[in-house]
């Protein structure tokens, strides 16, 4: 009866309490950082002695922070678009194709996800130094696209696997050309997968620290690099304000995703 929720007896109370505790543990840093960002103490006293918006003012008044955020947004958007496009094409090959080495190719395209980022970071940094792409936006976008590609391929390939190929065949028999059938029938049917791919690959670039630390130049800094620098220097509450805004962004993305999923499952 250990897998029957209604017949667990006293064990249910123990498990529920433990689950609540872990949920609190997972929630703690997120809530804590938001509270901290409104606290008035520069020394991060907690609970705060007073409430203030001055860290947000300081953050928004600092062009270095704004520029870093804009740079991050630009790079993440480009990396997301590129990896969704490339990932979409690759997914059709991986799911539908019948050619030798298909599994090997799948493994290769997903490897950047499992290889420790630091190895890729120094490898691509050395390579870009040699070909003159280090410290450039295009270099950033390429490196982040490599890292984001698995996060684009996995949801798209999963959606495509769940989509019955016979439906596309039916469209073709109905008179749609193979390209028309893909554009008008298959793509709309896997749109949730494509959307997830866009979000995941955007976040993969937006949150990426390690490659960014190596690639950044004094004139080209992403948000994580800026935060990393601040963390190594001091634990300024401005970082808490920046972090809270990032949590807000995450929440927005989660809500949009949940809404879209609900609408499509209707």
């Amino acid at each position, binding site marked *: *009866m250990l897998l*029957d929720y209604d017949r667990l007896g006293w064990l249910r109370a123990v498990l529920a309490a433990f689950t609540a505790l872990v*949920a609190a543990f997972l929630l703690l840093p997120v809530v804590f950082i938001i509270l901290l960002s409104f606290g008035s103490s520069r020394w991060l006293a907690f609970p705060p002695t007073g409430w203030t918006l001055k860290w947000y003012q300081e953050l928004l008044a600092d062009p270095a922070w704004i520029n870093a955020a804009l740079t991050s947004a630009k790079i993440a958007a480009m990396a997301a678009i590129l990896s969704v496009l490339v990932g979409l094409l690759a997914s059709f090959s991986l799911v539908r194709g019948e050619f030798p080495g298909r599994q090997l190719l799948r493994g*290769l395209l997903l490897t950047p996800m499992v290889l420790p980022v630091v190895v890729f970071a120094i490898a691509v940094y050395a390579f870009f130094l040699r070909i003159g792409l280090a410290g450039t936006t295009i270099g950033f976008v390429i490196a982040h696209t490599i890292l984001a590609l698995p996060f684009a391929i996995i949801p798209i390939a999963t959606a495509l696997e769940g989509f019955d190929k016979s439906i596309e065949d039916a469209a073709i028999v109905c008179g749609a050309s193979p390209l028309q059938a893909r554009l008008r029938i298959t793509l709309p049917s896997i749109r949730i997968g494509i959307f997830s791919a866009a979000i995941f690959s955007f976040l993969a670039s937006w949150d990426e620290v390690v490659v960014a630390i190596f690639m950044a130049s004094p004139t080209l800094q992403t948000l994580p690099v800026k935060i990393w620098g601040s963390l190594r220097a001091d634990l300024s509450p401005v970082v808490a304000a920046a972090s809270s805004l990032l949590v807000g962004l995450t929440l927005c993305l*989660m809500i949009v995703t949940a809404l879209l999923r609900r609408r499509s499952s209707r």
Partner: protein
Amino acid sequence: MQGTPLRRGSMAGSGGALPALTLVGLFFVVPVVALLLRSVTDPEPGLQNYAALFGSGTYVRVFLNTFLVAAVVTAVTIVVAFPVAWMLAIMPPALGSIVFGIIILSMWTNLLTRTYAWMVLLQRTGVINRTLMGLGIIHEPLPLINNLAGVTIGMVYIMLPFMILPLIGALRAIDPMTLRAAALCGASPFQAFGRILLPLSLPGIAAGGLMVFVMSLGYFVTPALLGGTSNMMLAEMIAQTVQSLLNWGLGSAAAFVLLIVTMALYALQLRMVGARRLAGGL
């Protein structure tokens, strides 16, 4: 059930992968291979970088510490994740979705943000030490940061979703009937747990645990910020060797060691669960 087969040639459908293959080949495979070559050519051809790596007590200690931290993190993560996954696997969805939401929120929140929060929480004058002292449990602040404790707390926090989510899948795949049958056969809850539930979920635990272990081995950010200089991990050492010491040969050799270990464990993981399940656990 078989699908409707379409006309196919021997390389049918491979064209779409070309852009991805070019991108990954040129900007992933080439740089990584070039880096590995560098470990045996920089500053001069030979294996001196590897000799230095395995001959020096400092570096060997980094290796051992890396494995130690990864092992501790994996063990703690499994123990904490299992009851949560168990509960979530059988809970009514309405209640469970709140916990799910929290797990996703924590997973999607910026890594540096989460690590920053733990830095503030764990510091000498941080909330945790003050609360414990306020409650009279301790009289001196506990050293919670820049040591193994700090890294473990921060890493377990990051790894928990990667363990909980696949475990839920593994637990849901177990037919509750088997446990009802065990109860009817006279097994006490403890016997049913030890003899039925745990063995049946062992493949899931092993797969998730291996994934957490592999990810922990190569982790850079959290150990660098929450760990101490005396227990540096491999990823941070590689970054430092290259960035501060500009010793590319040695850094490349260390990177190669990390790559080999990671890929070997990853291959083991693939054999255990297959690529599909691994991807599904994201």
